[in-house]
């Protein structure tokens, strides 16, 4: 048996997979579905986690009366336990042509797999969407739960090719047409779009999804070392742009890149979401254990 055949998936090696299985998502808000799940929600649940007392009222389940207090005060009080609800983890992968540069798409798939594993291991519903060509329906992996679904998720991701011209803002709207349920939405994209991101962010917020925005950029985007006169060709739509003295414009480029990142971070923050920009050259372990753990995205 070869070494690769021993691996559970080509996306994550077994060591990383084992480490990811022990990690949990840490959403900032408790956006859960009413259906029972593993996530502790408001009071009045049936979990073992004590939350509060309240006066007994007629019709209450007698099993929840705290008899010790009743013996001391001679008044019945009902113990309230936290409610355990289900959280939906939506993972949206930008599979357009712009993601095929360097290791962007590979890293996006690894991160998607990692977040999916974390969701499954936390008994959440996990659904995946991959957006490629504009105007087409995104490729969907329907919500699935449980460890048994891991294979399906890996298979979905492994067979996902990059290519197309689906802008991320339209992709989000297309996903929200298909999805129902509250939870978190992990956006794995380079966010390099000509459109505005306010509207899709508002829609995500309205749909009860907490945004985990992860911008993946390669070194050509983060630190372009170019000089001279050049003709840039857009990988998605083939449009060209003649730029003279590129070396002199690098400073302006960095200004605009920083501005885009700040804008996206603000959009996410204002909607109780999170945003991070990652270099696709970083290893998955570094991203998971160093960047995301430090930022409190996972534990």
């Amino acid at each position, binding site marked *: 048996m070869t070494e690769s055949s021993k691996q559970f998936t080509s996306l994550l090696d077994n060591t990383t997979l084992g480490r990811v299985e022990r990690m949990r998502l840490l959403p900032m808000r408790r956006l859960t579905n009413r259906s029972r799940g593993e996530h502790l929600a408001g009071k009045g649940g049936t979990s073992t986690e004590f939350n509060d007392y309240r006066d007994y009222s007629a019709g209450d389940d007698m099993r929840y009366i705290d008899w010790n207090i009743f013996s001391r005060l001679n008044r019945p009080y009902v113990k309230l336990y936290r409610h355990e609800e289900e959280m939906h983890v939506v993972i949206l992968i930008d599979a357009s042509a712009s993601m095929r540069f360097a290791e962007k798409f590979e890293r996006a798939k690894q991160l998607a797999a990692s977040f999916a594993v974390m969701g499954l291991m936390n008994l959440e519903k996990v659904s995946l969407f991959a957006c490629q060509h504009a105007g087409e329906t995104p490729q969907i992996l329907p919500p699935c739960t449980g460890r048994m679904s891991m294979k399906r998720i890996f298979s979905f991701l492994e067979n996902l090719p990059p290519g197309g011209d689906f802008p991320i803002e339209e992709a989000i709207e297309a996903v929200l047409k298909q999805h129902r349920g509250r939870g978190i939405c992990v956006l794995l994209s380079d966010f390099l779009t000509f459109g505005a991101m306010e509207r899709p962010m508002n829609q995500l917020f309205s749909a009860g999804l907490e945004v985990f925005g992860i911008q993946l950029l390669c070194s*050509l*985007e983060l630190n*372009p*070392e170019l000089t001279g*006169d050049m003709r840039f060709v857009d990988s*998605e739509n083939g449009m060209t742009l003649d730029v*003279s003295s590129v070396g002199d414009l690098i400073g302006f480029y960095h200004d605009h890149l920083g501005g885009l990142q700040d804008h996206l971070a603000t959009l996410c923050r204002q909607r109780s979401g999170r945003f991070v920009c990652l270099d696709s050259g970083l290893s998955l372990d570094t991203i998971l254990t160093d960047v995301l753990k430090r930022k409190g995205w996972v534990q």
Partner: protein
Amino acid sequence: MPMNLPGFSALINAWWFLLLVPLIIFYFLKLRRPRLEIPSLALWRQVISDQRVNSPFQKFKRNLLLLLQILLLCSLIFGAMQPYLSSGAEQARYLPVLIDNSASMAALDAPNGKSRLDEAKEKVSKLIDDLLPDQRICLISVSSTARKLTDFTDNKRLLREAVARLEVGQVPSRLEDGLRMAQAMSRVQPIDTVVLISDGNVPSEVDFELPYKLNFQKLGSGGANVGIVDFNARRSRTGWDVFARIEGTKKPEGAEGPPTAKTLCEYELLQNGQPVKQETVSIEGGKAERLVFKVATSIATSLELRIKPDGFDSLASDNVAFLEIPAPRPLAVYCPMGMETYREALATMPDINLYPGAGSEPKAVDLKIAEGPLSTGPDTRVQFNVGFVPEELSNLVELVSGHTEVVDWRRTAPLLQHVQLLDVQIADDPKLSKGVGERDFELAGYEILAQSRSGPLILEKTIDGKLVYQFLFHTDRSSLVYRVGFPIMVQNLIQIAAQRANLLDSKALPTGSLPPQRITPETEIRVSGPHGYTETAKSDKDGFLSGLAAPYVGPYEITGTAEPLKLGASLLSSGETGLVTVEKLHFPEVAVSASTMVLKTDQPLWGWFAIAGLFFLLLEWWYFQKRPAGVPV
């Protein structure tokens, strides 16, 4: 100082600026840009539309390649338009440049310093460098004679080679030849200005009427100098008295003004190459020190005087002088038997061999006295004719019988010194032909020494080194032979002949040309001199050899004759040794002041544009070929 705007020699080439139009069109049509696929243009679109990027300066930088091409084209076109920076001076199209290369131009300004000629060469080189395309320069070297180094040319290589070849001639200065040569050129080419580059050590009076403007560029003066300015010998009873004169020009330390400082100078006299005297003498600046030596010899001998100044001496060529002393011998005089008066006068004088009579008649004598036009008798250096009109003057003067008197004579002429001709009665009467004047005799080469009311009586002529005295009357038919002046005149004649034969005294030969020699007719000889100088010449049918150059100080040897002749040429010029400079050249009608200012010339600028064009070409090539960083191969 007024600002001079640049001008263009070939303004018509400005039409080439129209090439800018197709250049710009083709640039934008054929702009070569490497294609680079990037994930998205979103950010770059924003960058391009950024107001800062579209600022005028950034736009300017974006089209750097076009800018370089425009600059390259403009540089080439400006170069082709042949721009020049006008000096404001009137520009001469044909410019003769006279370069003084006399002995004083070898003077150094300081120990191991620069010679005047080097400085002159620098000035001429500057002129050549600034030569405009339509200008032609002719280089002429001027020393005792003038020599054309180049024709009018704009070939800078040719001109620079001619300047590099130019050497100092160890001869005194004389400007007339050079000025006349420029005048002769002005008959062919339009010449308005002639440039003279000299150290100013030239005669201030120039016998030449300037037909053009003379720009006298004076160089800096040389340093202190000591040199021999005279070297001669006079016969004495026991041998020869040798005289030498040494002059110095040293100025007092740190002082300007006349050269009055003293210089110690060691001198050495060599006889036939062997030192005979060596001493040290103090030379006072501005004054001459006279040295006297006694040389007892009864044979021909060569003397050489060398001086070695103590300290810096700017000119080396005047530190040595040569003198040839002939062997003593009696003067050979030919006087026909019929001329009793002369023979009797000659018979009383010592050291004379009188022919016919004293042994066999030689082929050549030192003095020949004749009373007729017959060309019989020996050859001579000094000819004394009486009683007839030479054939060449027969149409100018006619000898008739009559009575006449001397009305005027040249008392300073060597022949007539201390000779009283007043009231001398003459039975022959030379009469001028109608319409003939004194000028006609000058044109025939004669100089009138004495004349009567009706015409000349005594004439003098020098032809091919031969001195001829022509008495148009016969002395025997005059009262002159009864006067005291007659033997005095004969004595003067003997003195002249003896001097011509170098029997009385001997003078060191100056550089320039060797004295005429009489050798075997039509014989080819070879002259060899110092600094490897050689020359071949051929004597004429009379055996006369003249025009032999002696451009350098030193010993010369003439071979090819029966016996090799040894001669020495010396500078012996008080003017050259004194390094005295003139500030103004005086011509018959005008005076030209020296200018130490740099000669104003239009500065051609096309070279700078050519260099700029090359620079832009290289820059553009590098910029064009440079692969933009970050683009994958």
